[in-house]
């Protein structure tokens, strides 16, 4: 299982890019933290989620 934003999901084997697309995230407005590190944007397509991963998708909303 993979934990994303506090919720466990059966996502092992998917790439970050696949997960983001499937879950409807707008990749241009977020940052992805995985096990304490930021996943570089250029590597979303090659970063494969593994059992035990803990991720946080940080969403940026407008206003400042």
């Amino acid at each position, binding site marked *: 299982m993979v934990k994303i934003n506090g919720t466990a999901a059966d996502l092992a084997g998917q790439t970050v890019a696949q997960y983001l697309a499937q879950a409807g995230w707008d990749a*241009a*407005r*977020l*940052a992805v*933290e995985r096990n*304490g*590190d*930021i996943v*570089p*944007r250029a590597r979303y397509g090659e970063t494969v989620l593994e059992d035990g991963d803990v991720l*946080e998708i*940080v*969403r*940026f*909303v*407008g*206003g*400042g």
Partner: protein
Amino acid sequence: MWGVVNLHASPSREDLRLAREARHGPALQGRFSAASVAVCGLGGLGSNLALCLARAGVGWLHLIDFDRVELSNLHRQQYFATQLGQPKTEALRDILAAAAPDVTVTIHTARVTDGNLDALLADSQIVCEAFDVPEDKALLVNAVLERFPDKYVVAASGMAGLGPANEIRTRRITSHFYLCGDGTSQLTPGGGLLPSRVMLCAAHQAHTVLRILAGEPDI
């Protein structure tokens, strides 16, 4: 008693240093004075947090924005009506000079892009993300964290509207990435930015910067 104070005399650098040291202690003030911090975006977040950092005596501030002061800014940003039309970099530099004349301020009147951010941020230990467009926020935060693992990023997301003050908070996402705001309240037509809530978020960012500089990186 302090004796007679001449309200018209400009304080010397030494006066300013001693006054801050009396409040913060020499060790802490030394850390603030030695620091270099970039403020990217000089709107409601950036103008407020930059003033806060200048008053605290952060030694070198880099102010970055491409925009000019507009009437619609005055309700929540630090600018004065007399500064309408001025580049925000120049207007804020003047405000900081009046409030904290001993702080070194470098201005960059430019839009931050993937191509120029390395040069713009080279001298800063801590980068404050204070943009208003989500894509700009994401570009800056990701680029700095990817390319400069030693720099700290203090970003903001979600401070629009009339939501409770206590929903504005600071989170530590990674060892070098902090996020302030409620995470969800975005700018919408009719759902504007109130000065108090934007200032709360800016104060969270400024306080996070000061804690990092103080060697207290936990939230």
